[in-house]
């Protein structure tokens, strides 16, 4: 836990709006539940965003095959997506400096980094984004402080 605690905090701060004065005061530990350690640790390594591992490639191939992309074109399409992601990462690094890790980065950089994953051409990378976002939001919006902050009226039963 000690190794990933700063990553959890950095992620929760990026996904929620703790920097918004209207956002209720909550403890990050209240919403760290369920975040998969291995996923967090790899997400933290900024350079890994540009690495197309076997699982990412396989997931993309499956999707392209399902979408009836001709076999001969699949490698080219994957290469184009990889290039696009690499260029977006380079652009991100030009804007925010030579970051190696997500956790210590400034909040704006962390949100821009999350956006990289959200808008990736690779389904496996978008899945990382939706998984992390979903786990944080699902836990956060179960808190009464958040319910009140967004005007949710718990019905009487």
């Amino acid at each position: 836990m000690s190794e990933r605690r700063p990553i959890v905090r950095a992620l929760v701060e990026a996904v929620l709006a703790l920097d918004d004065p209207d956002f209720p005061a909550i403890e990050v530990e209240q919403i760290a539940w369920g975040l998969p350690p291995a996923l967090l640790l790899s997400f933290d390594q900024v350079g890994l965003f540009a690495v197309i591992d076997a699982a990412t490639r396989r997931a993309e191939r499956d999707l392209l095959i399902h979408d009836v992309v001709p076999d001969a074109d699949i490698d080219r399409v994957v290469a184009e997506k990889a290039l696009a992601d690499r260029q977006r990462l380079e652009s991100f690094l030009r804007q925010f400096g030579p970051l190696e890790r997500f956790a210590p980065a400034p909040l704006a950089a962390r949100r821009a980094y999350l956006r990289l994953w959200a808008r990736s051409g690779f389904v496996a990378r978008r899945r990382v984004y939706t998984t992390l976002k979903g786990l944080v939001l699902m836990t956060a919006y179960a808190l009464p402080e958040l319910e009140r902050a967004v005007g949710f009226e718990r019905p009487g039963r």
Partner: protein
Amino acid sequence: MRTESCDVLVVGSGAAGSVLAATLAERTDLDIVLVEGGGHFAGEAMTGREGEMAERLYAGGGRRTTEDGAIVVRGGTCVGGGTTVNVALCLDPVASVWERWRRDHGLTGFSFDPGASDHGIAELNLARCLAEVRARLNVHPPADQEINENNRLFAAGCRAAGISVRRFELNMSGCTACGLCAAGCAIDAKQSALVTYVPDAVKRGVRLVHHCRVETLELEGDGATRTAVGARATIGPRREGSRPNLLAPGPVRFRAGLVIVAAGAIESPALLQRSGHPDPHDRLGRGLVLHPSLGIIGLHEHQVAAGTGIEGTMYSDHFVASHGFFLQCLFAPLAAGACTLPGFGPEHFALMRQLPRLGAFGVMLLDGVSDQNRVVWDPIEQRPRIQYRLGRSDRARMRFAARLGVEVMFAAGAREVLLPSEEPVGPLETPWFRHPSEAAYCSELALDPHSTVVASSHAQGTVKMGEDPATSVVNARCESHQVQNLMVCDSSVFPTSCGVNPMLSVMTLARYQGRRLAAELGRHGL
């Protein structure tokens, strides 16, 4: 290992299993055991807290998804199954769909003529069974004052767009409109199987065993003589909030003259697969239908309070015949809704703070059948893998439906309309529309997994019914083509989409098969 003997073992206490058990108990003196993998959570255990109830009542704690993680496939895993957690929407079985199944799949019976006697059994027909189910569930339309503002706006939007709109019927009695149907009904107003057919069955002597995970069916013999003789199961410890169990925790073996699998379109094929049910034509688990649904979210000028009152009371079937989709008025619970909305950080929180002014409804697609979409039991992870992707033609229809939905939401008076999606469309970074003319950008939606949120609550079609063993797994009597004394009866046997929200179709099928079986016990030596 303990052994429990019975005449009939029913696996699954949801829409199908509960009705089968109750019907058999009503019409025979058979010794029946009804087993359920989840717990028995009654009104007093329904706290209304979203996360807690998802863990108690839903498959996978509400986090069951397709293998690629892209589509949440909701289902009830508790006594009463999906009927315990649905929002009480009742649409009758569609006669034309069943007629097509009879024609295309060689099915006999399933007559909608109330005077018919299918299979030579007096007064056995779907019309009569449907009437009985509707009466037991108190299916009726909501009163005018039960239509909340979200549904009223949806209906107004449909009418303004020139689209027909109808009122749902609901299986409720004494509803106080707390808006928490999906978290289980705390006052037993929702007339789910939990408060109707399950107690009916138990009152007539059916033994209900919950927290009971069936590991495998027991099959004996080979080839044409292969016969189901029972099941091996493990009863888990009773979870907090559940009613007491009939049997103590631990392994148990059930011996039965007839086994009926009614565990739903995800678990039923998985159970058959891990039990070694023969599948010579590679049909088992294939052809999954999900009724994928896409939310249409509107930001109104005034308070809508969509989460207050009865969630769904209005729908449109205007495009069902021509394009195969419904518009149905629904609103997600708070935390699930938060995950659905696009973006994160301050923009997401700003949108969440608009909650009282948000309205929503859903587009529900009647998806086509593809062999690639299927359920596969994973022996390593010990869970069913749900392999599903939207086909090209389904995606085209979904784009059209999304565009129409956006137009309806604007016609309902929404100032802005957005989709639960982070895909860029046209010049827009995401499908967040400020003017009705922008609805046309929906034609550019890729609907890619993990870019656009699509959800499902209606899994069907993985143990298909038909008379040809080369193209189906069970016959019109829901009997396995390959294994004697084994029936499968739930939404998995539908050859295609049943064409509507499936609860009444499933319960009517179960009532029909229960009545038929009571008159044909000799087919199974009972």
